[in-house]
């Protein structure tokens, strides 16, 4: 039942204090005065409580169980971080208060930026971007500004591997680049020949994620960096997969010029049903002046915002980004420290390789090699034999109370699962997952239709998303 169906005319869920101020007439032309109330729900407080409590119960979440969604780093979201972010001293301040009255917030941002620079090996950073994709756009705009600042107007192209996350080409396009896709090599990594052919004077930037979306480390990264820089282009790092490298190496050390991070992945801030996140962008020194406005600076022990950046790409959103997400990430970094971060990286990679070993007994591993924090497995052959698709297996996993891995991504593997366990999962959980997966394949062999019709034990059964898009219903229909 929707909240609109619970609604009853004249029921109320609020009360406001009186403010003793006389009523002022709406001093407006009649046609600007609203005639018909918006059909918002009219419910009592307990109605609201029950509605959302019952909706929440229909959600799977990290707090419910294993969530091996590849590329998304669904690690545990510590509760202390939530508590800190909700402190009024952080949540109730206005972005335009005198900066003397927000030194705590500015200091937090400044220190977070410094810590993230250290972790990425970059020289400067902005915390403003609201998510990974927003960071990508920011980074690509910086690349654009860089070349233009040198008067180099011919660099209209951005190279993106075919294994890249969809946001990469999309962001490159939004930043005004023509996207050149290069095919991955047989080992799932950048094919140096392909790259070489694509690299010309019109190339502004190569976007990579390392480990890439197959969970494989680009071993030739130093070579790649050399090739790219030799051609006068920049190297962009999609930091979605940084979890794998914590404590071992840094994008800056590998030759990347620009990097974006996902605080809502590596740095444990919760995904909030899809957001808000935060996508800081770090750059090497020569690109610092292009970072967006405003920048946080420290002058004589005072923290300030600097709006005077003539070479900047400009504003990329209002205010200073998703501050309360930064608070969570900062709390996490204080909690983990250098020793903890190292463990994070190691255990994330250990978990992925261990699970890979378990899964390879059940499904084919797309690129059977040591993986980093995640790996891709495929059931393409099995699908051909049985008609049971990766999608069906995924749905059946839900019946067993675990979330399905990412499906059908990266696009270069078919009928695939991209599995990322993260470091916060125990061996027991991984063993259990492998066991369930194995059981489902047995089920699928014995009774393919049974699995094709999964799930059975979920709040709703398999949903028809094809006709949902064909004859879309965008909103509740109140009838007339």
């Amino acid at each position, binding site marked *: 039942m929707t909240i609109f169906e619970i609604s009853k005319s004249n029921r109320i*869920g*609020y009360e*406001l*204090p009186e*403010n003793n101020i*006389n009523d002022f007439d709406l001093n407006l032309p009649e046609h600007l005065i609203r005639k018909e*109330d*918006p059909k918002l*729900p009219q419910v009592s407080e307990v109605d*609201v409580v029950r509605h*959302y409590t019952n909706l*929440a119960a*229909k*959600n799977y979440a990290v*707090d419910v169980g294993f969530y091996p*969604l590849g590329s998304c780093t669904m690690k545990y979201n510590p509760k202390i971080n939530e508590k800190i972010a*909700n402190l009024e*001293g*952080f949540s109730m*301040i*206005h*972005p335009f*208060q005198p900066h003397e*009255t*927000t030194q705590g917030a500015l200091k937090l941002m400044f220190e977070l930026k410094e810590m993230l620079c*250290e972790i990425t*090996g970059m020289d400067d950073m902005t915390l403003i971007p*609201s998510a990974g994709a*927003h960071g990508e*756009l920011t980074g690509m705009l910086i690349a654009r500004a860089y070349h233009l600042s040198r008067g180099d107007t011919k660099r209209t192209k951005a190279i993106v591997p075919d294994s890249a996350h969809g946001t990469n*080409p999309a962001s490159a*396009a939004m930043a005004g680049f023509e996207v050149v896709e290069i095919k991955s090599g047989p080992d799932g990594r950048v094919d140096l020949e392909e790259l070489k052919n694509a690299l010309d004077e019109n190339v502004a930037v190569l976007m990579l994620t390392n480990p890439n979306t197959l969970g494989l480390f680009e071993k030739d990264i130093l070579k790649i960096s050399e090739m790219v820089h030799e051609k006068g282009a920049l190297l962009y790092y999609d930091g979605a997969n940084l979890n794998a490298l914590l404590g071992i*190496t840094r994008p800056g050390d590998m030759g990347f010029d620009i990097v974006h991070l996902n605080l809502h992945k590596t740095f*444990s801030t919760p995904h*909030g049903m*899809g*957001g*808000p996140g935060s996508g800081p962008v770090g750059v090497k020194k020569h690109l610092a002046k292009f970072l967006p406005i405003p920048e946080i600076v420290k002058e004589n022990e005072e923290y300030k915002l600097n709006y005077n950046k003539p070479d900047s790409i*400009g504003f990329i*959103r*209002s*205010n*200073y980004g998703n501050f309360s997400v930064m*608070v969570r990430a*900062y709390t996490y970094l204080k*909690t983990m*420290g250098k020793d903890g971060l190292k*463990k994070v990286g*190691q255990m994330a990679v*250990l978990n992925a390789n*261990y699970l890979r070993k378990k899964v390879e007994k059940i499904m084919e591993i797309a690129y059977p090699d*040591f993986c980093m924090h995640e790996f891709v497995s495929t059931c393409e052959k099995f699908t051909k034999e049985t008609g049971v698709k990766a999608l069906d297996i995924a749905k059946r996993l839900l019946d067993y109370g675990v979330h*399905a891995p990412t*499906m059908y991504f990266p696009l270069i593997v078919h009928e695939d699962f991209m599995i990322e366990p993260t470091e*916060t999962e125990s*061996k027991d959980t991984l063993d259990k997952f492998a066991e369930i997966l194995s059981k489902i394949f047995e089920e699928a062999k014995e009774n393919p239709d049974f699995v094709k019709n999964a*799930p059975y034990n979920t709040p709703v059964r398999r949903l028809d998303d094809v*006709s949902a898009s064909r004859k879309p*219903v965008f909103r*509740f229909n109140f009838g007339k």
Partner: protein
Amino acid sequence: MHRYIPHTPEEINEMLKEIGINSLEDLYVGVPRTIDDYNLENGKDEFTVKKELINLSKENKLFELENIFAGAGTYYHFIPTVVETLANNQRFVTAYTPYQAEVSQGTLQSLFEYQTMMCELTGMEVANSSMYDGATALAEAMLMAVRINNKTKILAASSINPEYLFTSRTYCTPQNIEIQEIKWDENGEVDINDLKNKIDSNTSAVVVGYPNFFGIIEDLKKIKEAIPENIIFIVVSEPISLSILEAPGKLGADIVVGEGQALGITPNFGGPGIGFFTTLEKYVRKMPGRIIGETKDVDGKKGYVMILQTREQHIRRARATSNICSNHALMALTNAIYMSVMGPSGLKKVAKMSYNAAHYLAKKLEEKGYKLTFKGPFFNEFVFNAGENYYERWKKLSENGILGPLPLEKSLPNFKNKALACCTEVNTKESIDNLLRHF
């Protein structure tokens, strides 16, 4: 190991054995080790971290709600406790994008309901399930207008939020879209003549605020009448005001965007808020962002899924309607809970109280000889000439526990000593009278 990392030494050994290696180092095949240790502190226990962070939070000054007269896109409203309690449910907070719809009906239904509410408020036919903020929502609206119209000029009122305009420029420039500004008149409203003069055959869209950055309620009808049919009419609005202002959808808007923070979200030093984005069905395939739709499961039971994903980056890639992936879904939930609690009458009351308070302050200021900068009708914000050295006086005010009307000179150089005053239902008569004592 660590409270967030469950591995015991025995387990690590078993796992290494299963993998067939001897040590953790062996995992990093081909990865250059470039660091031994970050130049960072070691990790700390929760109680130490908590203490440090609480202390840090206290280095920010909190003003009593009633003494806050700052708006400019970030607003203080009363937020019922129930909003916070419900939106903090960890089954919402720690869920991801609803890729597996069958176990994400909580997310999907609440976002579907949010979309419905935003459609109701704006009078539009479709809403997406969120953008990052008002500024990026506007920037994306401009890109969308150009996708629809294929013309590269956009006319935007100078009176919209400067940060929104700047952001839009950042987004539009690489697409070779030109943003031309339309002047305001003495009312603080769009100068219709200037608008008419600047419209040409290359114009894709016209953008106005409703209310605009100065709080002025633009006459959308008049503006709509001034622009040719095929030009996309983009309205940047403020959701609370829409409970008493005629819905832009009824006045000819093609796209209505704005910042939704006022709907139950704490100010958070400016983020996260949420960008809302609504339009007409005929444009939906050009729209950025995720949309949730209603459907049925195999048993015929109602359910919700993400729809029209072929517009999005993960399928359309470089030709997607936007690069947006993670959005501000949790804030959309918060908005929906807030609107559920307040209902139409509550929202209207908030709007009316805000309106009254702002008009009371304006009247009193005028009585004291202060001049309002614009003559047009305003909602809950207005610009006035605050007198000599206002910037310094404003800082002093903050030492007296008042976050006064925001000085505009930093963002609008022509507005020296001018201030943007904001009132909402949190401001009492007493607090306003108290503020006035400083003027």
